[in-house]
């Protein structure tokens, strides 16, 4: 558990720091730690999702220079929630993965916005939604689906051996 948790957090962090800027499209970068937390929470359950989301979010908060605890909280809640209901979702279907990740990303964005508003965050939700949350959510959806397919393919290869 600890090894996978560390891998998740650091792998996500490294990917976010290295890959995300490189695969930016029209200045929109995916939230790779969120994708990794969601995907592994689906497999490992709510505890993993909660702790993983918390540490990954805290790492993002610290590296971004914003309010500490905002992303830690939103990602912990998302990880916990998806880990809890994941057993009841048919997440192997791309038709579920893409909209699911888009929805989760939007929810995470809304939660973050709500938290930040408590601390007098100046930007309006409309602008944030159009320019930040929705584009990133769409990107997360497609990238997450691609990751799920890649994982499923590698597992099928391993089983075939």
């Amino acid at each position, binding site marked *: 558990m600890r090894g996978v948790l560390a891998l998740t957090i650091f792998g996500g962090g490294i990917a976010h720091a290295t890959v995300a800027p490189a695969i930016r499209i029209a200045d929109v970068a995916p939230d790779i730690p969120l994708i990794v937390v969601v995907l592994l929470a689906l497999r490992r359950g709510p505890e993993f999702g909660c702790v993983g989301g*918390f540490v990954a979010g805290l790492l993002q908060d610290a*590296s971004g220079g914003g309010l500490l*605890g905002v992303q830690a909280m939103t990602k912990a*809640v998302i990880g916990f929630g998806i880990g*809890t209901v994941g057993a009841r979702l048919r997440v192997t279907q791309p038709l579920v993965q893409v909209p699911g990740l888009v929805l989760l990303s939007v929810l995470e964005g809304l939660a973050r916005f709500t938290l930040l508003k408590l601390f007098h965050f100046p930007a309006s939700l409309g602008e944030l939604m159009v320019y930040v949350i929705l584009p990133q959510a769409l990107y997360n959806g497609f990238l997450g689906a691609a990751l799920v397919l890649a994982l499923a393919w590698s597992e099928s290869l391993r089983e075939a051996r």
Partner: protein
Amino acid sequence: MKARTVFLLALTLAVCLVLLTIQSRGRGDIAADAVAVVMTPVQKGLAAIHRGAVGLWTTYLDWKAVRAENHRLREEVRRLRVESLAVSETQEENRRLRRLLELKARLPIQTLPGEIIAREWGGWVRSLTVNRGRGDDVRRLTAVISPDGLVGRVVDVRPGSAVVQVLTDPASTVGGHVLRTRTPGIVEGDPRGTLRFKYMARDGTDLQVGDVVVSSGQGGIFPRGIPIGRVRAIDDRGAALFHYAALSPVVDYARIDEVLLVTGDLMQDLTAFFVAPSGG
């Protein structure tokens, strides 16, 4: 749901709320410092990994660009080499044609330019085929010359071409004389592809290696004074009536590409119109 799971969630949220509360009360530094103690080494590590990954990626991109550029440059070099060869070939052809045209303009006789389209280079027959024939009013025994000297004579005329017997053909004989001493003789082809000059011993006592032999104009086939060859060796046969001199042809028959067919007056002396080779 397990109590542990709920407790974990509650603890996580509590930590977050504590962090946010501390920051909202203007003591953000304490929280940030506390997190920084833990996070800074991690961030440093991540930054190092990031730099390494970016460096690797940049190196890969550079390598890819260099490889593509290398491929492109190789293609360009290959294309330029081909172009360079074509240009050299064109320049060489231009130079040859220019020499031929200069000769044609210089000569006081009527000539017809022709291009070599085939060569027969066996030991039995040595001939060239030019792209001028019956339609160009070329006749049998027409003299064929080049800027360097005499090439041969037309022995067969066809509708679009003519066969030229070159001087080195074993059946070829041409009347000639040594330019310096006026020693008369006969230039004969040789099965080895060389020329020999047959002359009377009493006339050729002054003959020297390097002397130039030109056509004598006798026989009415070749104009007088066209260079044939240069004396390479003298075969002194003692008291024999005829002596021989081996000649180096002034024309490289194997490489010649363009010629002039003499269609006009053959009685002119053309010695002054050819660049006199040294020794003449």
